[in-house]
């Protein structure tokens, strides 16, 4: 159990580090999935800890983790779709940090009805 907990902590640490420090969106997405795996492992450990007499593991965290995995999968799919579209449009996937605080970056919203 302690080994699993250490593993979960390690995965979460790695994922969080990658998510914050990596400038590339694809790597951020991968890091998010590593971080997510750590959290799901944590759910598993909580389920095992909550084991009662006759039951191998507490079913509630197991039910939660399935929902969590579905949500993480959907999020990853959406992020990858956006990334692919960005790459198709521009040929690179850098997230320009100048435009984050920029003044002239976002597109004019002037589409006629």
């Amino acid at each position, binding site marked *: 159990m302690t080994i699993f907990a250490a593993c979960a902590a390690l995965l979460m640490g790695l994922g969080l580090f990658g998510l914050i420090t990596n400038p590339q969106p694809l790597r951020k997405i991968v890091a998010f999935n590593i971080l997510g795996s750590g959290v799901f492992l944590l759910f598993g450990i909580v389920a095992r800890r*909550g084991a009662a007499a006759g039951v191998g593991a507490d079913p509630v*965290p197991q039910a939660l983790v399935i929902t969590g995995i579905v*949500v993480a999968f959907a999020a990853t799919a959406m*992020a990858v779709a*956006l990334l692919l579209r960005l790459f198709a449009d521009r040929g690179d996937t850098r*997230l320009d940090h100048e*435009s*984050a605080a920029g003044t002239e970056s976002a597109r004019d919203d002037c589409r006629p*009805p």
Partner: protein
Amino acid sequence: MTDAASQSVLPVLGIMLPATGMLLMLLVGGRYVEWLALILLPAGLAVAAAIFAAVWREGHTLIYVVGGWQPPLGIALRADGLSAAMMLVTAVIICATGLFAGPQFSQPRGRPERRAPLVFWTLLLAIWAALNAVVVGADLFNLYVALELLTFAAVPLVALTGGTETIEAALRYLLFALLGSVSYLIGTVLLFAAYGTLDIALLSARVRPEPISWIAASLMTIGLIAKTALFPLHLWLPPAHAGAPAPGSAVLSALVVKGSFFLIVRLWFDAMPGLLNLAAAQLLAGLGAAAILLGSILALRQSRLKLLIAYSTVAQVGYLFLIFPLAGAASEPASSIAWTGGWLQLFSHAFAKAAMFMAAGLIAEALGHDRIAELGGIARRLPISTLAFALAGLSLMGVPPSGGFVAKWLLLLASVMQGQWWWAAVILLGGVLAGAYVLIVVGKALAPAGAAAAPTAPVSRRREVVALTVALGAVLLGLVPLQPSELLQIGRLDVHALAAR
């Protein structure tokens, strides 16, 4: 939650109606989407009004226990006074946005079918369903799912026009949101590990101020702050909100960021009332104060109208966080005054910001750009839109009579009553800065057109009137009596009794 509550099917109807409508839209496809929206929007408004009326009349919480399974085994939906008010404001703004967006996202007969209308209406209903789920959810994991639905509906709305910048903005928004959601999820699992339940009412009785609850609360708050775009996690907001089409910006700025703010309040005031101490409250409000000042100053420096409005959202969201030190302290009646003031700020900002984005969208449509320096003469061409912008601006500044005035006055009163004068200084300075950035725009709009003024495109009068009506809504909120509202207290836990326990 502690007082009387009645069983009602209304809360679940509030979620299911837009959710079912969204699926039906996907089923019927492009041509009939608008007609479906025409039926669904009033129906959803009626449900929200019914919930509001029921909570108002009966004076207690409405509960729906899903599948008849009582918590902690099952999941409950609770509509207290706050949820009812949030649902009503959400419904009104969504319906106004629908009216405003009608001509922009319609499918003219005899022309090739476009994808944008179908996507827009589906996302609008998805956002509605998710927001209703956020306000009536009574279980932290259920709220996590609702929050994710909200994000997944909001992100594509940013990228709806399909420009490269908007896709980049959407991707950045999504990455911030993912960090936020996973952080919230870690907090949830820690709380479950420690206390064995995620039901808010049960948690409020069980949570003790100990390290694990502190870590869980901090992680969840950080996650939610990233989604609310509180300083310093606000970087994604301006490009995302400025890049979306005008009706999308209106919903994103007016409602979507408020969904995650609502959860922060649920967390600190309802789920863990014993945990909100002076340091945590002052830290949250300190970030809010930094957001007010920084957001306003950055708004002043923008050269494009939609970005100015987006930075103003960063600033106005900051005010909401003043609720933590002012309403969390055990000093009646000041804390009730701050509680009402904070929520009124949320509601009036929702109306004002929706109106502002709608007006800005129309101005951009007429001119073909939204550069503030070249707005000259627009007040003559689009008097109704300019008036809508100015009225909404009055509410942001906090000029009476407007909802923003009452909200800021109540917050000011509470901070002076509690001797926390530094928040009063921030509120006043924020008002002055808001005045400056609104007046810059209005002044340019009122200036005579330059010699090189481009011809303007015609703009639908109906859409202008919708923008003006929403702005008038922000002003009318100023007629709310200047006193703590009883409705917003319905179903609240007695925070101070718990803290003393």
